[in-house]
Each structure stands twice: as structure tokens, then as C-alpha cells.
């Protein structure tokens, strides 16, 4: 662990809808992962979950509309790494999202993002009000998958 002085405990970002930003966000989540003592495996899965959430916000939420914005909030509190992604889309009905591991869905070429997010994070919560907000929590020192 580094000294609290140099620790990053809170970063909030808002950016115009663009996939180009993803490569610039990854170092931020990685840096916080290191700070929290996650090994490189855990870092990998946390980034994967974060990327899936951002992809969904950009693609399904904001539908690539560059006038819309995506918000990302990463906070560290009481050993909990909390990642929130918010878009300006129409929301969706979580209960209608098919389970990709059901036999009839296994060979579909999409629909695994949410499943991965839930697999690699300790908690994933959705709210849809003025867009979609997904909050993902990773508790300290549990390793995935």
C-alpha cells in the first residue's frame, strides 16, 4: 500500500460518448486496483466488468450519440471499490435480459456483458431513471473469478 497522501480515493469523469476514452480510463481503474492491493488477475477482471458497463452505456444507452455524455465514478471507501456508470439513454428492463448460459442462448453472438459483470464483481445494481445507472462493487481482497 502506498501512503494515504498519494492515494486516489475518488475520481468522477464525464465524457462525450466515444469508445476512444476506454483506453484512457483503464490506467485509472488499474491504479486504484494496485492501491487496494489487488493482483493483476483481479485487475484484469475488474477492468473487464468496467469496460462492459461503459460499452453498454455508450452503445445501448447513448446509442453512440456524441452529444450525450457518459459518467463514470470510481470511489474507494472502507475497502470497497465502487464503480458507477451512468448514461443518458432510455433505460431497459433488466428482467427481460436473457440468461446467456441457457441452452438456447449459448450460441448467440451477444448478450454476455451483464453476465460477466455479475461474475467478476461482488455486487451489481441497476437503476433506470433519466438514463441507466449501474453500480458495481468489489470488496477488498476477494479474488475473481
Amino acid at each position: 500500500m502506498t501512503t494515504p497522501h498519494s492515494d486516489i480515493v475518488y475520481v468522477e469523469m464525464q465524457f462525450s460518448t466515444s469508445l476512444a476514452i476506454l483506453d484512457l480510463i483503464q490506467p485509472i481503474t488499474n491504479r486504484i486496483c494496485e492501491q487496494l492491493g489487488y493482483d493483476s488477475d483481479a485487475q484484469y477482471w475488474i477492468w473487464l466488468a468496467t469496460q462492459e458497463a461503459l460499452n453498454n452505456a455508450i452503445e445501448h444507452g447513448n446509442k453512440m450519440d456524441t452529444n450525450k455524455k457518459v459518467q463514470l465514478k470510481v470511489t474507494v471507501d472502507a475497502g470497497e471499490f465502487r464503480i458507477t456508470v451512468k448514461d443518458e439513454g432510455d433505460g431497459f428492463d433488466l428482467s427481460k435480459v436473457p440468461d446467456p448460459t441457457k441452452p438456447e442462448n449459448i450460441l448467440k453472438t451477444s448478450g454476455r456483458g451483464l453476465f460477466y459483470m455479475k461474475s467478476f464483481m461482488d455486487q451489481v445494481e441497476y437503476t433506470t431513471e433519466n438514463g441507466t445507472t449501474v453500480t458495481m462493487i468489489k470488496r477488498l481482497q476477494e479474488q475473481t473469478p
Partner: protein
Amino acid sequence: MKINIRNEGEVTIVDLEGKITIGEGDVLLREAIHELTSQSDPKILLNMARVAYMDSSGVGELLACFQAVNEQGGTLKLLNISTKIKDLLQITQLLSVFEYFNDESNALASFG
């Protein structure tokens, strides 16, 4: 992503290098496979030794390629998939869908 294509007898080995994610690599991969499936009965070995990262879009792309090749009466197999990619396929019940190898000559021999 970089793609290199080599032929070993009847088998086409596609060496992938980089990331297969949304907006990066996915389209390139699709185009390369589309090209290869214009021939009949394609035998394709995707060498993923240098694929460092793949997300759900990448997994979807892999499946799309697999199915495109199958429809053409061909076969697509995987070579050198990392533990992490194996995990991604495993937890979505896809590991048994793909035939995969850790050794190129074994992989080539398997095409018969």
C-alpha cells in the same frame, strides 16, 4: 489488432495479435474470416497466443466466426488461448463448443 495469415497444407492459420474488443479488432477479425470463408470447406486455426485481452464483444465475434465457417462446411479451431480467455468461455458454457489446442502441430494434425 494485427492479423497475419499463413497456410500450412490445407489449413489456414490466422495469427491474431492485440485486443478483440468492441471497436478494436472485432471488425478486422470478421473481415479476415469472411475473406477465408469464400473458399469452400475452409479449415481455419485461430492462433490466439498474442491476444492479450478480449471482452464480451470479442467472445461474440469468435462465435460469429465459428458459425460463419461452419455454414461454409468448414472447421474453425482455436490455438493457444490464455487462461483468462478460457475463463471467459468457460463461465458462459462455451469452452466445449470450441476445439482448442496448445500445440500447433497437434492442432494441424487434428484437421485430418
